């Protein structure tokens, strides 16, 4: 299924970038994917490209290390606000003018920050490539950050924070992160809190932009209907001209809570929205693949998972129940998420904890192990088909340093996991005795003690 293709050095790179240090890796990923080229520009920006010409459009994604983890203390939400404010107009033209042009092309430009990084994305028809990319570079390198628009956005953000209180799943997520990471950067919502967002200013946005937006350490992925000459003549010169003077990305201290803890949020709901979890693993942990297989059997494998079988299929207690190891670059969490009518909440929690314990004590059956591996390996190509899917995948591969041969190595990494590995990592990384429980529920109906 996986074939290796030789890749020739693209001539445009040699011609245009004599001084660039670039590494070119041959990588076919899967049959589905066109070859990928990787180059580091003199300004430090890493560019990955994958040409695919069957549809006349192009997807760009730029990752910058400007996520919420770099929010200054007390200014939660600044990274997120800055990312959005990038689209509020440039030194050359107003926001209305930028939006008018984008909409006229039918293009979409978005800018959003997560916990660890922000991503600026553009999808544009090939016929508008030049104009679309010019706008992309303009918002990236010459944002105006007009004070009135930034102030409006602060008002809207406060409203959005308020609106999110009507979504019990989000309320539970926020409470869980806070209980696990406390006042540190991973304990705060990316969007910020009412208290922190009220304090955000346009000066803060400018400062954050100046100190975090920089080509060095950033990653650009270009996928779709684009040719060498367009890359050489249009794209690379503009990307090379992008300058920044950002501070280096530094480590942030995270001290996850490790004691058992319960957080109850009382709401007049019909269901208890439950999260049960604790610290997980980072993405570079060599046990990542064993953990992935273990989690698939426990609660990641859709209807076939143990949590789903016990909670939904046997007892009809929930529509949705799943477990997940969110393995980030700097931190990781483990969570079981489920919703059930208030009256069943305590039963559902007991069932979930019992399954965590079971996989820590019993060796998984060979057929369960085999089924998990077959799914994880067999479904991998389904990720790599749309432009958006491929671009997102390449961004992760580069960001996490997985190597451009990752798609080819993946089956072997999963295949090597044994039942003993599953038992070992379950013992090491699941803590049924010391988890954080968050319940957003009608506390009385659920029978939780007040």
């Amino acid at each position, binding site marked *: 299924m996986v074939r290796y293709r030789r890749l020739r050095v693209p001539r445009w790179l040699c011609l245009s970038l004599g001084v660039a240090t670039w590494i070119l890796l041959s990588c076919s990923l899967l049959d589905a994917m066109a070859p990928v080229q990787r180059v580091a520009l003199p300004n430090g920006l890493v560019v990955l490209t994958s040409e695919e010409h069957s*549809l006349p459009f192009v997807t760009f994604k730029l990752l910058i290390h400007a996520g919420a983890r770099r929010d200054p203390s007390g200014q939660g939400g600044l990274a997120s606000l800055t990312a959005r404010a990038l689209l509020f107009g440039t030194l050359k033209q107003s926001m209305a003018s930028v939006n008018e042009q984008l*909409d006229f092309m039918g293009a979409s430009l978005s800018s959003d920050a997560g916990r660890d990084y922000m991503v600026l994305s553009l999808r544009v028809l090939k016929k508008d490539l030049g104009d679309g990319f010019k706008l992309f570079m303009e918002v990236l390198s010459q944002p105006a950050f007009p004070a009135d628009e930034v102030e409006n956005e602060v008002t809207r953000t406060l409203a959005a924070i308020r609106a999110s209180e009507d979504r019990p799943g989000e309320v539970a997520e926020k409470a869980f992160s806070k209980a696990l990471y406390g006042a540190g950067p991973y304990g705060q919502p990316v969007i910020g809190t*009412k208290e922190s967002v009220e304090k955000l200013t346009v000066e803060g946005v400018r400062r954050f932009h100046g100190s975090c937006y920089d080509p060095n350490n950033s990653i650009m992925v270009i996928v779709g209907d684009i040719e060498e000459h367009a890359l050489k003549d249009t794209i690379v010169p503009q990307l090379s001209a992008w300058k920044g003077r950002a501070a280096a990305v530094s480590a942030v201290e995270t001290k996850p809570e490790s004691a*058992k803890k319960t957080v109850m949020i009382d709401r007049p709901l019909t269901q208890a929205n439950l999260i049960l979890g604790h610290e997980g693993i980072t993405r570079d942990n060599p046990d990542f693949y064993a953990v992935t297989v273990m989690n698939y059997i426990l609660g990641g494998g*859709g209807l076939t998972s143990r949590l789903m079988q016990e909670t939904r299929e046997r007892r009809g207690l929930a529509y949705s129940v799943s477990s997940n190891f969110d393995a980030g670059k700097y931190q990781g969490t483990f969570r079981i998420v489920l919703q059930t009518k208030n009256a069943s909440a305590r039963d559902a929690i007991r069932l979930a904890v019992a399954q965590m314990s079971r996989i820590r004590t019993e060796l998984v059956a060979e057929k369960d192990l085999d089924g998990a591996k077959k799914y994880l390996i067999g479904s991998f190509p389904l990720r790599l088909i749309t432009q958006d899917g491929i671009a997102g995948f390449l961004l992760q591969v580069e960001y996490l340093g997985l190597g451009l041969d990752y798609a080819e190595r993946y089956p072997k990494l999963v295949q090597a996991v044994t039942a003993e590995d599953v038992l070992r990592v379950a013992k090491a990384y699941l803590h049924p005795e010391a988890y954080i429980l968050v319940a957003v529920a009608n506390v009385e109906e659920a029978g939780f003690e007040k």
Partner: protein
Amino acid sequence: MRRAFGATFILLPVFLLLALVGSSAAGLQDVVSEAVLPNGLKVLLLENHKAPVVTFQVWYRVGSRNEEFSKTGLSHLLEHMMFKGTETIGPGELSRIVQENGGQHNAFTSTDSTTYFENLSADRINVSLELESDRMQHLMLREQDFKTERPVVMEERRLRTDDNPKAIVWEQLDAIAFELQPYHWPVIGWMQDIARLTVDDLRNYYKRFYNPANAVLVVAGDFKKDELLPRIERWFGTIPKGVQPEGRVPLEEPQIGERRTVIKREARLASLVIGYHVPNLRQQDSEASQDSYTLEVVEALLGSGESSRLQTSLVRKKKLALGIGVGHSLLSKDPGLFSIGADVLPDKNVTDVEKAIDEEIDRLQREPVGERELQKAKNQLEAGFIFQQDSLFSQAMRLARYEMVLGWRAIDGYLPAIRKVSAADILRVAKQYLTPDNRTVAVLVPLPSTKAASRLPDSRAGEQAIR
């Protein structure tokens, strides 16, 4: 914005990201082949060799529109039961088999149809052939499975609707806008009805609606149609021919005045939705058949992109709304609603939001849209049409949805019809349909919290450690 597809089966957002199809320039007529088996099963095959995968979709012409008063939610509950095994496949086996073959699968029910699909590696297409032909005829509807699955659907309703104030507003809008059409009730059904349905109801419904003559099979991806079609014939051809049930439902009488409802719920923000009755492609004579396409352009003008009229007015200039949305379901089987929704910013007035929307409607009815703005809306629709082809799944889905309403060949008429829309068409259509007498307005009035938990705006309030 009106969710055409009400309820999905499995919880996780399934990645509907498959390969692209054909070239945007080529008409579908050239790349799709159609066959009808002697038992009435319609088969649509779309070859695409870009990636070694296929999407395999079985669409039954049955949805909540085929249900009746006091038995709502039947289509969706049956969809759940379709995963509970057949005479040869035990309960839970189906998912295991698909996943062990590296496949992703799910199902969804809408007002108009029920769909089952697998996305898998092209060399595993037999899995779909075997499983889907089996459950088209041999479903075991066991009482014990029904007993555990009904509560699952009730949990699904609590999750999607009962604990979601905005979903209730949409549910109420439909309930009031539609008096005669079955779009009156939600796809998932009313809670009381779900509680009352019996396994015999499901058996009768399955017998009536699940047969080859009432289904469309769409396969898109990396296969050769000359090789695949005989295999489809082998697996599906032996299923006895059924009858395609009568699909006609009553239609609304013309609305004779505005309808309005207020929903009072604990919530943080007020919101507002307005629905105007509009015709659909199916119901129109050829003279008026442009109207649905004209409404597509109106939808884009009002709500598509940051520079759209409602976004500019309500969100940017007047700062009344946190967000707006405009919806028009081009491919509904019965006439639907053209809808406008807005989330009202705190301390702003719902009445002012409604007034600002009215001003934009009024402007559509008074001033011809300028040439550039009209072109912008058309460009957005055209780009959207091309972007959609990136996903093999949505391409197959579009084929099937057209097939349900007008026949799949009508897809090739979409862009030409959009290009033909004139400023005069927009004036006329806005005057004809977007009138106060033809609309239903549903308003969410937030009630303050009854729980100590949320009395304080601080997000930390109400948390208490109990251990």
